[in-house]
């Protein structure tokens, strides 16, 4: 039996914080062989990234690694290495790809120079040779038109292209081990699939060991040989991927596996009257360009004459890649953004052109849940104040006690305990915060809720819970949703009808089942393929 390439034993990482010591990782062990992919799965906060950073000795300053932690890499114990020795190993023998390609590339250097730098640090060679090497790498990671790419800056590239540059950087010195920390989470679905197949091909051709950190089980199933499931800093299950998927032994793994959004929206009443009607919505942003003396303006049309109808009890999905104008349209319909044209009718009355004061009586009936639950709750207010705000502003509830009861009911609705009222938002996890944001909308007893990617900042297993919750609430309170998403799986589980948007235009619309099962346009076909078959 050969020695595994990387073997970590009993990794313990504690963080000292103001509120006490946090045991982020409590005795994790796993190993990876050459040419093998190990998937490390878990929700955010399970310690999977911290373990990977411990392997690279790239932990934050307040982290303490346990005494018995051993990290064997190719026969060498990395936990005893000095910082100088680690510098030789990092980027040369072990490299890492991070989640957010925009922030991991330096914006003021050309991407070619950034990759060349990594090569030159570890392998002395002339700049010219290094640039030739970069070109070869860019071809290998299938960047279109590599000769022009080398002299581009990161902001000139798309997210997927930047992630390809990151991969080229990671592969620059032919590492033995590649750690990919959620490499596709920040990318659009269609791009995710391409990046994953690229990683898989590269692993095969380089015979690398890969540690793939992810919360996406579909990715795990399609790409990994072995899997380690982590929760609360501990390994709860490990084994060959196929085996674990076929026969999960731990309840938590079973729960993760069952957390794919599923189910169908409950049928819509035939005679449901239209609630929110938007006709010929047009939103354009004025962009200034040219010099100081010959300033010119151009209109960037984000939403191009789109009409939609949401009927009472209906959920309308709006799907598209980032930049397709779906959020802009949603915000314009609920009048949080000024539209340049179009007619909006809510419950039979025109609401376009109303002033902010005139909109105020309608506000409780039209609510919104934002994408990022970390920025949508005021950090200086306790939960009760956050949910109560709408009640106070609109004069709902006669007394403080009555309002508190309404807040309590809203918390019950989103299945949060009532003691949450006295806490601050930072004490809750992402999924819990999103429940609180939904409770804020629900407390006003609205008819219509705009859901702006409410699940995309959350882990998969939490996404499914939120989707179930939204479906239950729709039935219970007779709500209508406009659901903006780029994730077709979620849309399939929740929406009756769907609109597919691209560059501000509608490319396809219809009943969800029809659009997703028999997409007519190439763009929709690409989206569907990316969502339901991860590897292209």
């Amino acid at each position, binding site marked *: 039996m050969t020695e595994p390439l990387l073997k970590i034993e009993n990794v313990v990482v504690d*963080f*000292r*914080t*103001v*509120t006490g010591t946090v045991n982020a990782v409590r005795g994790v062990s796993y190993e990876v062989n050459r040419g093998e992919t190990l998937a490390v799965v878990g929700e955010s906060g399970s310690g999977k990234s911290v373990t990977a950073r411990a392997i690279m000795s790239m932990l*934050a*300053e*307040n982290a303490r690694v346990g005494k018995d932690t051993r990290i064997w890499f190719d026969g060498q114990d990395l936990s005893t290495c000095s910082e100088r020795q680690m510098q030789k190993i990092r980027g040369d023998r072990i490299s890492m790809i991070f989640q957010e390609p925009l922030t991991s590339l330096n914006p003021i250097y050309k991407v070619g120079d950034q990759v060349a730098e990594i090569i030159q640090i570890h392998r002395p060679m002339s700049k010219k040779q290094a640039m030739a090497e970069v070109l070869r790498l860019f071809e290998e990671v299938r960047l279109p038109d590599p000769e022009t790419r080398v002299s581009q800056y990161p902001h000139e590239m798309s997210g997927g292209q930047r992630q390809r540059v990151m991969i080229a950087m990671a592969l620059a010195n032919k590492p033995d081990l590649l750690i990919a920390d959620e490499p596709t989470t920040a990318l659009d679905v269609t791009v995710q699939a391409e990046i994953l197949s690229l990683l898989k091909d590269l692993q095969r051709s380089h015979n690398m060991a890969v540690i793939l950190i992810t919360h996406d089980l579909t990715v795990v199933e399609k790409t990994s040989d072995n899997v380690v499931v982590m929760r609360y800093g501990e390994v709860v299950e490990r084994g060959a991927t196929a085996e674990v998927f076929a026969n999960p032994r731990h*309840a*938590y793994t079973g*729960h993760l596996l069952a957390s794919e959004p599923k189910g169908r929206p409950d049928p819509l009443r035939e005679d449901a009257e239209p609630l929110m009607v938007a006709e010929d919505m047009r939103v354009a942003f004025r962009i200034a360009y040219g010099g100081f003396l010959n300033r010119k303006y151009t209109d960037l049309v984000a939403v191009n004459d789109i009409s939609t109808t949401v009927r009472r009890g209906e959920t309308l999905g709006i799907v598209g890649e980032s930049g397709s104008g779906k959020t802009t349209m949603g915000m314009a319909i*609920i009048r*949080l953004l000024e539209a340049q044209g179009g007619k909006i009718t809510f419950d039979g009355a025109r609401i376009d052109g109303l002033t*902010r004061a005139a*909109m*105020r*009586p309608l*506000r*409780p009936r*039209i*609510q*919104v849940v*934002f*994408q*990022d639950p970390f*920025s*949508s*709750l*005021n*950090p*200086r*207010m*306790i939960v009760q104040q*956050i949910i109560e*705000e*709408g009640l106070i*502003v*609109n004069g709902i509830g006669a007394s403080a006690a009555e309002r508190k009861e309404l807040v309590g009911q809203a918390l019950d609705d989103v*299945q*949060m*305990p009532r*003691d*949450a009222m*006295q*806490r*601050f938002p930072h*004490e*809750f*996890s992402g*999924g*819990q915060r999103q429940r609180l*944001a939904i409770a*804020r909308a629900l407390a*006003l007893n609205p008819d219509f809720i705009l859901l702006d990617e409410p699940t995309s900042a959350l882990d998969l297993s939490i996404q499914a*819970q939120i989707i179930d919750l939204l479906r239950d609430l729709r039935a219970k309170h007779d709500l209508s949703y406009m659901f903006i998403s780029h994730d077709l799986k979620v849309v399939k589980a929740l929406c009756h009808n769907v609109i597919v948007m691209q560059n501000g235009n509608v490319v396809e619309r219809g009943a969800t089942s029809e659009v997703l099962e028999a997409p007519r346009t190439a763009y929709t076909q690409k989206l569907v393929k990316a969502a339901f078959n991860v590897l292209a």
Partner: protein
Amino acid sequence: MTDISLNAEAVKQGPSLGYWQLVRRRFLRNRYGVVGLIGCLFIMLTAVFSGFIAPYAPETKDRSAVYSPPQAIRIMAPEGGLSRPYVLGFREEMHPVTFEITFVPDETARQNLALFVRGDAWTFLGMTFDRHLIGTTDGGFVHFLGTDSLGRDVFSRMIQGTRITLLMGVLVMAASCAVGITIGVTSGYVGGRFDMIVQRVVEFVKSFPDLPLYLALVAILPRRAEPMMIFVMFAAILVLLRWADLSRELRGKVIALRSMDYVRAAVAVGASDRRIIGRHIVPNTSSHIIVWATYQLPEVILLESFLSFLGVGVQAPMVSWGTMLNQVRDFQSFAAAPWLMAPVGMIVISVLAFNAFGDGLRDAMDPYSND
């Protein structure tokens, strides 16, 4: 089924820590900042209870001791062994050749020290007291930091001067905060043309050479103006030139906060502008404002002492650290009585303390650090 709650994650138990509680904990871990805080408290207490701590009133003159050097507190009795703390008076001796007058401790003029002795009357919150922290048993004079040209006790004046100097600092800080917050927040929140005009005004104020303006104050104010009047005018001019920084910084913060989702959520529930500013925007800039204010205080203290030293700022009979330094303007008095420089020590201590406190606060209030 195991004990794992599968549908909802466990909600945190135990006491809930608010933002300010977290800030306090984080601050208390920073030793340098805590030392700064202690220093600030010490200075502020000195200012509040200056009448009690100072042995004499600022205008009390000891005619027998002009330019008398500091008296050291002694605890070793001349006959040997420990004794109660005492000071020795001075005997003037003239150098036979240079005729230079020197002060030599006089073994016979011994005065015992005591705590809580009676002395000059001082008022606090409208009440009059005559007890002082320290003094001599028989009511004679003691000058820990010597005396000035009129025989006034430098130590007492320095303690009393804390009051005016700090009052100036707090006044200028509070007023420029009020102006800066109002203008900065409105400018950032309203935006558009109003913002454009306000920002040009801010730039104009910031481009103004401040020193000539301070000096021009002397020319503007009538020669016989009340010292209190000059004090207020002086503070007003400092405020006029200081609010601009804060308002510009806040404007940037407000523009960033205005597009936060929680502000948009407040718009979506129908909240008014007033409520959004008061409940969502200003509380989230409070840490910035507090840190700015802590850094302002030492700057104003330095500026006050500098300008009063030039004779432009606070005017006699008001006592501030700057006006005390004004007495050492010429080199002769500096060479003859270096102890008149004592307020410099207080200025250095207070500036260091407020800056250390400000640094500690800034680190503690960083919302992104969780260490």
